[in-house]
């Protein structure tokens, strides 16, 4: 405080903005100076004349006498001309310097200014007082931008002004350097973010690859539920099948195998929905539909003396329904058609649970659907299932399929339908079984890609 009081001087400021004036006033007062404020050049000039200040700080753009005019008035008055005059300028134009010189200003401070910087200027001006005799010493002609200015300036004044201009340039330069540094920092951050993004993308790509591999593996597991060969020959006749999932992972599968020495089992399972959940359920169901007498098989069970008991189809459906209630399996359910063929007698016991009916094509005569309505597996624990019997004669064919066959749609959204199925199998009745199945598949593939089927002569 003592130092401030010691250094404190009288200062007149000219500033038309009340807020700017207040800020400036506070800064200067805090530094120990005594401040008087005029809201334009004329008012400030009055204050200067009333009582001579040690220094004047003036804005340039003001109504009723600008900063230049105010400065000129001060510097033109022999009594006042030695008062140091600081112009607050934006210095956006080289002419500002000339105008300042012409007006006789001693110093520039560019706006917006740092308070400490302005206080420094005030201090240095007070330390190098202007000599009165030097004030109006010489006149210089300066031509700039097509205009000639007669500048009446003392050496000290020119020097002060040049120094302040140079200091402003240095300050501006430092700002630029700082800005450049900020830019460099921002750039570095950007590069770091880019790198992180790149790494993240790589991680996603890796995860994606892993998922694709997993899905492929799952599809392979699902394939393992199917018979090894598309054409199978048993002592009672031939079987041919095709499997075309409409999505990479399907909930559908089929199988055919000997249950014991006298029985052949055939089934098609169609799990609702598609994708991973459906395919997982189909794999789980598949473990129950195995001809190996084990704890899990619902098709056969060990009898006495090491014999194998073939479970009747209706019991198979009932047991599956007991094991696979949809509430326990994410609301997934499945339809199921299952045939047990007696290979000696040609008798077929079958059940269908919400599944499209078997299609029987006799050696001679018209094809006929073996309709058997019942609930899909998994809807109701108390559901009851039925079983029926049909007699196959030599040369007869029996078709098992999923709704992917009959509901296959063409581009006009027309379903393949039961009639088309009957037509195609009837047309191919004299061709070998496997060729007929291929033909049927081709016909459907031209519409939509999902079908599986089984033939039995």
């Amino acid at each position, binding site marked *: 405080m003592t130092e401030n009081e010691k250094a404190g001087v009288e200062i007149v400021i000219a500033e038309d903005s009340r807020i700017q004036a207040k800020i400036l006033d506070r800064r200067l007062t805090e530094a120990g100076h005594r401040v008087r404020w005029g809201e334009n050049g004329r008012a400030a000039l009055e204050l200067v004349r009333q009582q001579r200040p040690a220094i004047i700080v003036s804005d340039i753009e003001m109504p009723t006498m600008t900063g230049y005019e105010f400065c000129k008035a001060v510097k033109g008055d022999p009594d006042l001309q030695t008062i140091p005059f600081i112009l607050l300028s934006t210095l956006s134009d080289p002419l500002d310097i000339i105008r300042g010189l012409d007006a006789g200003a001693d110093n520039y401070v560019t706006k917006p200014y740092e308070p400490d910087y302005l206080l420094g200027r005030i201090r240095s001006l007070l330390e190098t007082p202007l000599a009165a005799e030097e004030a109006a010493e010489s006149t210089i002609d300066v031509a700039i931008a097509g205009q000639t200015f007669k500048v009446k300036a003392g050496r000290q004044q020119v020097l002060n002004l040049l120094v302040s201009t140079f200091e402003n340039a240095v300050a501006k330069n430092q700002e630029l350097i700082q800005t450049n540094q900020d830019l460099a920092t921002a750039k570095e951050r950007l590069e770091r973010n880019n790198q992180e993004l790149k790494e993240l993308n790589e991680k996603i790509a890796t995860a994606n690859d892993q998922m694709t591999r997993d899905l492929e593996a799952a599809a392979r597991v699902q394939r393992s539920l199917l018979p090894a060969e598309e054409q199978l020959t048993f002592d009672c006749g031939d079987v041919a099948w095709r499997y075309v999932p409409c999505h990479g992972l399907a909930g559908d599968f089929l199988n055919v195998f000997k249950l014991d020495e006298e029985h052949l089992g055939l089934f098609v399972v169609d799990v609702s929905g598609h994708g991973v959940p459906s395919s997982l359920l189909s794999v789980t169901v598949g473990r129950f539909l195995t001809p190996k007498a084990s704890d899990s098989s619902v098709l056969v069970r060990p009898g006495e003396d090491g014999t194998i008991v073939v479970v009747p189809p209706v019991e198979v459906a009932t047991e599956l329904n007991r094991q696979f209630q949809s509430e326990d399996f994410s*609301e997934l*359910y499945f*339809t199921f058609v299952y045939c047990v063929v007696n290979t000696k007698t040609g008798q077929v016991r079958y059940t269908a649970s919400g599944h499209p009916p078997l299609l029987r094509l006799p050696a001679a005569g018209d094809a006929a659907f073996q309709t058997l309505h019942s609930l899909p597996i998994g809807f109701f624990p108390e559901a009851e299932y039925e079983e029926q019997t049909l007699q196959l004669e030599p040369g007869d064919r029996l078709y098992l399929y999923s709704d992917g066959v009959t509901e296959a749609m063409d581009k006009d959204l027309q*379903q393949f339908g039961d009639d088309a199925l009957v037509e195609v199998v009837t047309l191919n009745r004299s061709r070998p079984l496997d060729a007929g199945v291929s033909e049927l598949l081709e016909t459907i593939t031209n519409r939509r890609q999902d079908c599986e089927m089984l033939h039995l002569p």
Partner: protein
Amino acid sequence: MSEKPDIVIRREAGCVVVEFAVPRISEGTIVEAIQTTLTQLIENDPQQKIVIDFQRVELMSSATLGVLVRFYRDLAENGGRIVLCGLQPPVQKVFELTRLDQLFRIEKDLAAGLSRLAG
């Protein structure tokens, strides 16, 4: 939403009428939308009388059956009632094949469906 809604819900004769206003109910978003809509109906009032109008549905996938059966169970457990109506032959066939025509009350058209629930 300027698009025509796929599922229209309105009150009529003391019932909630749910109209599936799309020609094809296959898998994916429409099935999910039906599930969401029906779940909301149950949450609002599990004892209401509901008519589902299939008049404009030409084809329906089996995936929809699971949703309808679950809805039926939830409603039946809470004392609500449901009638299906306006089933086109391909849709009717799906219900017959899965024997769900025995489970659901099915009426020829909306008027018949409403009068069935009026009693």
